[in-house]
């Protein structure tokens, strides 16, 4: 499409605003911190060790998440059973949990006093320890396997039904289907998913430290913490923030280089029927994959719920008020996310290859943005214009939206590309532009991914503590902050109750927004 006359300008106009905002919030805040610093020193051996550990644990976490997601997504894509939609939604729950809650849930299963070790001891076997690199990876897989499954499932059901029909008519079995249909899809989809999870794990801090067992498990984000609040060295904090961004860019370039764009064209809107997966062995394999995943992901959540349910009715009023505030922030954050991600995804899908790669990489940067740097940078800039406390909720919503943007963009992009490839010319030839095109073409074709990404953004915002500390105002505490306050006041039982409330609200919000957007509905 190199020579198209108009869209270049339109691309700039559509994608430019969100891209500029994104740059301001990520690199701009980093620059703000740099400018405030008194000088920038070099990185010491401890920091280099932290960088090595960060990359290694992120690599392992992404690898395991992706590999394990394949059988699960395949099983979900080719089986239909009652409760499938609910299972898909529930499997997404760990991803939207606040870190501390998830860690407590994981420890209830895998910890020293957890169910697994109780079982091992009962069987007369030696207990296993979760603390160490294995714990870090386990927790990251717990968080990110749901994301990998969901993104992969989306790619799976986007293989047009006609291809499966063709395969069936040619007498292809599961092996040939895998070779001709599924492997090319995986080849196209997995690098991006791997990258996203790798980047999420790059900025891990609380999980890595709590389950890593000690200073061996020091990540770059912890080093940023140390620079900020132990050494009061803004320069080093900003330098480490820059290291994170560079790691992000390097990983993105690498992932884009090995990504093969999927070559599947448009199919008409028909239900996918699979003729190849009827064998009992394949059925058993799928049942196993789903059952194991469900236990791994849902058991910790069930234990959190059991532990906190009793405290739920007696929660202090302040917690309910915080819950309401968090809900509003989440809805605001979802709205901002969509209004940034949709134009960005549309721009990427219409841009020339080079510009598309650049925008796509840019959209991933928030994943590698330290929320401490983001919060501090925003604080440095905004405090000259308003009392930070009055900005607490809008800033939280905006920051949460920024952090959700990479997910939303990644979810919208394949469908945006498909719409552009399949119907872009037709819409252009009919002079469909602006709101009309959005209403008649983009929204109806993208309704599934739009609802999914809005739900995800809302839920992520619910659980995020993120940047609020510098802007916090005692009167506008969000639910996660209130949860931490309960813990800090020794009220661990109320905190457990608040965790259940948070879990329930995040999930309900996600479910309501995403409902009807099951990926096998008309995509």
């Amino acid at each position, binding site marked *: 499409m190199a020579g198209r006359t108009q869209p270049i300008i339109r691309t700039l106009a559509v994608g430019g605003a969100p891209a500029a905002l994104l740059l301001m919030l990520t690199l701009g805040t980093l620059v703000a911190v740099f400018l405030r610093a008194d000088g920038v020193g070099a990185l010491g051996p*401890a920091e280099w060790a932290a960088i090595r550990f960060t990359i290694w644990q992120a690599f392992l976490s992404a690898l395991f998440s992706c590999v394990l997601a394949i059988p699960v997504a395949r099983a979900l894509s080719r089986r239909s059973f009652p409760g499938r939609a609910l299972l898909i939604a529930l499997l997404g729950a760990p991803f939207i949990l606040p870190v*501390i809650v998830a*860690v*407590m849930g994981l*420890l209830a299963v895998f*910890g*020293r*006093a957890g169910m697994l070790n109780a079982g091992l001891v009962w069987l007369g076997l030696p207990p296993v320890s979760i*603390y160490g690199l294995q714990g870090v990876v386990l927790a990251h897989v717990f968080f990110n396997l749901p994301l990998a499954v969901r993104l992969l499932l989306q790619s799976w059901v986007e293989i047009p039904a006609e291809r499966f029909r063709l395969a069936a008519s040619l007498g292809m079995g599961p092996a040939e289907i895998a070779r001709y249909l599924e492997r090319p899809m995986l080849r196209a989809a997995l690098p991006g998913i791997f990258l996203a999870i790798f980047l999420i794990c790059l900025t891990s*801090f*609380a999980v890595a*430290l*709590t*389950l*890593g*067992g*000690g*200073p*061996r498990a020091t990540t770059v984000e*912890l080093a940023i*913490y*140390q620079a*900020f*609040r*132990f050494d*009061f060295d*803004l320069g080093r904090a900003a330098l480490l923030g820059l290291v994170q961004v560079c790691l992000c860019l390097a990983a993105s370039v690498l992932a884009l280089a090995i990504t093969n764009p999927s070559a599947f064209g448009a199919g008409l809107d028909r239900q996918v029927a699979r003729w190849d997966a009827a064998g009992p062995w394949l059925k058993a394999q799928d049942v196993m994959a789903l059952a194991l995943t469900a236990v791994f992901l849902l058991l910790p959540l069930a234990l959190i719920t059991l532990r906190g349910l009793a405290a739920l009715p007696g929660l202090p009023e*302040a917690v309910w008020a915080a819950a309401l*505030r968090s809900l*509003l922030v989440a*809805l*605001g954050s979802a709205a901002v996310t969509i209004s940034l991600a949709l134009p960005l995804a549309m721009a990427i899908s219409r841009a020339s290859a080079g510009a598309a790669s650049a925008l796509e990489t840019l959209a991933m940067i928030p994943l590698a943005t330290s929320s401490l740097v983001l919060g*501090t940078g925003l*604080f*440095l800039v905004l*405090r000259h214009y308003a*009392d930070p*406390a*009055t900005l607490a*909720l*809008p800033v939280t919503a905006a920051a949460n939206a920024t952090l959700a943007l990479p997910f939303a963009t990644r979810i919208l992009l394949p469908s945006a590309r498909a719409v552009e490839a399949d119907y872009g010319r037709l819409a252009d030839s009919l002079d469909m532009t602006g709101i009309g095109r959005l209403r008649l073409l983009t929204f109806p074709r993208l309704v599934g991914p739009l609802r999914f990404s809005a739900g995800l953004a809302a839920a992520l915002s619910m659980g995020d503590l993120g940047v609020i*500390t*510098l802007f*916090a*105002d*005692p*009167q*506008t*505490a969000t639910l996660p*902050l209130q949860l*931490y*306050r*309960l*813990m*800090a*006041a*020794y*009220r*661990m039982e109320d*905190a457990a109750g608040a965790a259940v409330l948070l879990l329930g609200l995040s999930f309900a919000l996600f479910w309501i927004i995403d409902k009807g957007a099951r990926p096998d509905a008309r995509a």
Partner: protein
Amino acid sequence: MRKSLMIAGLLATTTPFSAVAQDKPVLTIYTYDSFVSEWGPGPAVKAAFEADCGCDLQFVGSGDGAALLARLLIEGADSPADIVLGLDTNLTAEAAASGLFAPHGQAPALDLPVGWSDPLFLPYDWGYFAFVYDKTKVDTVPSDFEALAASDLKIVIQDPRSSTPGLGLLLWVKQAYGEKAGGIWSELADNIVTVTPGWSEAYGLFLNGEADAVLSYTTSPAYHLIAEGDDTKAAMPFDEGHYMQIEVAGKLAASDQPDLTDRFLAFMTTDAFQSVIPETNWMYPAKTPEAGLPEGFGTLVVPGKSLLYPADEARSIRDEALAEWQAALSR
């Protein structure tokens, strides 16, 4: 449209600006987040001080003591804060070096186990770091770090780089063992289940049974006793003494409310403030109230020896102590 109006309305009703009565002077106090929470001392302190100051007391909470200082250092001289409340003695050297603080000019009688003469910072509460355990689960209670290291007890501690108790523990071992501190850490390594980013995570892990003991305060069992009627938690008394945490407040030289500021610092060591501390911050008040301490406090372990580095020394020694800690636990 409706939704955004709702959000705007919510913001308007909850932001301090709209709550400010125009004629009253505003006193802005920076503190750590748990001080201002519903369950911290903040609400009671605010009510008591506003009762007769004719002013509006605004608490601004951010993170913990170290985050608080970081924020202040970022803002520098044009910080809107009049008072910073919630630094501990491991942070005051850095705070004093910033030149942002002015002498408090107060000389109240205090009930601290150590003398106090800092011209810039005034204590409002204090406590001893200690390992807290469950009496029903631990039979042999170690009497010092060496005994703890030799035992097979599992402990959770906090990271000194991200947590003030973690930093306190670092200096505790350093002051008790000096040159031998690195060795103690090496021996403790197999007792440490994990290192958490903050106090809350560590204490939560302990209560969920992940460890036999957790680094906290000698006053922690008082919470369980008073608030929950649970007397199973206790602190381990260590023969080499316990490191102290003294929490202080200081006035900012650039404050535009110097009179109110002085008034608050004087108020801080009166009963009205001090009597709130024990059962909200779960620390010892800097000046014991007339009515004495709450009943449960009488059952607490009282260390025979108090350890505390002077602020300057704490600042100069912590990098070396941190390096020892990291080296010992990274092996």
